[in-house]
């Protein structure tokens, strides 16, 4: 019944033909409607969003400053990391003595004071950044590599592999990360950076494995993966071209949020005396030392604590902005 109506009303003689209509319609808009929606893809949008977020700018700046400090520690630190001066000197005080060995009395400024061994606190903190950065990056890289591989395979293939992985994740879930790391240190039987990296790295595997598995499980159900299978795409190509690119955002966010956790974990292990060797300059050890002198020299624990806080805060803020920009849910990534 409806077909008769298209020609109702005026005869079409004075109507515009479709091309002409399109030409006129174009005059009224600068671009076609398709072009007016963002054209440059997601990355530019994310960049713009991050640049417009004060939290992100602060985070990124502080992170860069931290990395820079760690890389150029010998140049930034005023003294050698093992040089000793007067012990328990207050912030903004001076040590006097022959520190250069040239027979003259030097007057040495300690902006943050000295610790109970007489190390310049600022120097120790600057060098401590190196351990923190090293441990953070290596542990997260390790946990990411192993965890993502496990999660991807388990999530995609399911079945027995998945079942085994999930039991393992349940198992690891039973251990708070530091406890697991402490247990591993006991197992590995000794202190040192390598053992700390292995211990924390292993303790973080489950976070990545669980995240990636969850992402894969949900992406695997997407219609575009079904569409890829329908054209005959191989499993490997589906995993690398269809699934992983869509799981990148939460993985990146998880990585930026795991770095501060690794920094805290390293500091906690060192604080407990289960981390690096006691002479190494690290923030955790300084805090442990400061705890003993809390009545006499508050600065030994407060400044390294603040250093941890600022760096962790910076990473957290940056990671949080990334999450907003990538539109990843709070519940998707874990922060503990």
């Amino acid at each position, binding site marked *: 019944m409806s077909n008769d109506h298209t020609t109702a009303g005026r005869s079409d003689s004075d109507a515009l033909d479709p091309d002409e209509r399109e030409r006129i319609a174009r005059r009224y808009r600068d671009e076609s409607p398709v072009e007016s929606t963002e054209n440059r893809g997601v990355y530019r949008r994310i960049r713009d969003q991050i640049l417009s977020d004060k939290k992100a700018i602060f985070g990124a700046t502080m992170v860069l400053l931290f990395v820079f400090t760690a890389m150029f520690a010998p140049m930034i630190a005023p003294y050698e990391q093992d040089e000793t001066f007067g012990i328990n000197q207050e912030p903004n005080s001076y040590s006097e003595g022959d520190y250069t060995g040239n027979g003259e009395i030097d007057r040495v400024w300690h902006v943050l004071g000295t610790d109970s061994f007489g190390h310049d606190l600022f120097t120790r903190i600057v060098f401590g950044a190196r351990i923190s950065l090293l441990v953070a990056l290596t542990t997260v890289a390790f946990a990411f590599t192993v965890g993502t591989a496990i999660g991807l395979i388990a999530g995609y293939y399911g079945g027995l592999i998945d079942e085994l992985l999930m039991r393992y994740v*349940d198992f690891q879930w*039973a*251990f708070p990360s530091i406890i697991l790391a*402490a247990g591993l240190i006991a197992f590995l*039987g000794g202190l040192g950076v390598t053992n700390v990296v292995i211990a924390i790295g292993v303790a973080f595997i489950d976070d990545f494995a669980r995240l990636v598995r969850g992402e894969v499980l949900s992406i695997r159900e997407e219609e575009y993966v079904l569409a890829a299978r329908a054209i005959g795409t191989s499993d490997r190509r589906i995993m690398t071209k269809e699934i992983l690119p869509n799981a990148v955002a939460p993985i990146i966010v998880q990585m930026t949020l795991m770095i501060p956790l690794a920094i805290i974990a390293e500091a906690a292990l060192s604080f*407990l005396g289960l981390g690096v060797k006691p002479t190494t300059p690290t923030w955790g050890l300084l805090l442990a030392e400061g*705890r003993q002198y809390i009545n006499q020299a508050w600065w030994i624990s407060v400044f390294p*604590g603040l250093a941890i806080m600022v760096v962790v805060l910076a990473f957290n803020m940056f990671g949080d902005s990334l999450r907003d920009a990538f539109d990843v849910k709070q519940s998707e990534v874990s922060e503990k």
Partner: protein
Amino acid sequence: MKKYIAKRVLNALFVVWLVATVVFFGLRAIPGGPVRTMLGAEATEEAVNRMRAELGLDQPLYVQYVEWMIDLMTFDLGQSLTSGEQISVMMASAVPRTLSIALIGVVVGLGIALPTGIISATRKGQRSDYVATVAAFLGLSMPAFFIGILLALVFGVWWGVLPIVGYAPLQEDGIVEWFRRILLPGISVGVPYAAVVMRMTRSSLLEVLDAEYMRTAKAKGVGRTTRLYKHAMQNALIPVVTVAGIQIALVLVGSVTVELVFGIQGIGRLLVDAILDRNYPVTQAVILLVASIMVFMNLSVDIIYTFLDPRIRYGDEAS
């Protein structure tokens, strides 16, 4: 629902068994064997063998394993290598200390987190949200032991109103003294916990406030406060409970380090000392204990779910 709970309980038991087994074999897989590591490289072969016999390590592996399982089921955790004390006795004194800290931590944490999370979500974008969010970031960025040191410094050293060393058992010294000693450590572990839970509360509530059924409630003429507490809260709490449960781990980890700050002989100290002394029986006992607490927490979360989520309560998880 029965099936759901049965499944969860079975899973929990399975995990505890798995942990016990892994700890058992892990211990025996230590390069060079635990006894050699314990006694040091200089120990004579004879001394090592005597020690192995004492610990039952000379028996076939399966016999050891069965005995270990039987011991566990009878709560016989063996003896400390350094003091010869029964480990169960050591635990009996350490566990209440750690749990006291954790308890205060959780109470303080939830006490801060839930109200701020709710305020922050309902006033999204306003000044109070901003302040709460920044505070949460700070809380998230300070490890418990640093907070502990700061609190000890301020309230103990500078202000001198609270003791900063030691623990006072509840039964012997009364609740006031117990509380005075446990308050600062409790707050120290509670603050990072509060930060995590608050952020989850905020985001979860924001998501729920956006849900279609909230629009239905508004369209029915339900007032703002009733919408928030009656219609939104229970739905929003479902993910919060997960996080609050899992993050008990954060409180336990915090306790371990904070015990060191405040000189409290809890399980954290026990563990650290045991590891440093290579006191393997104690190490494995503590690890097993912590893992069991975590498994129990996860199980509790699963059971709380059944109260919060009618979809689980009435048995069809799948949909």
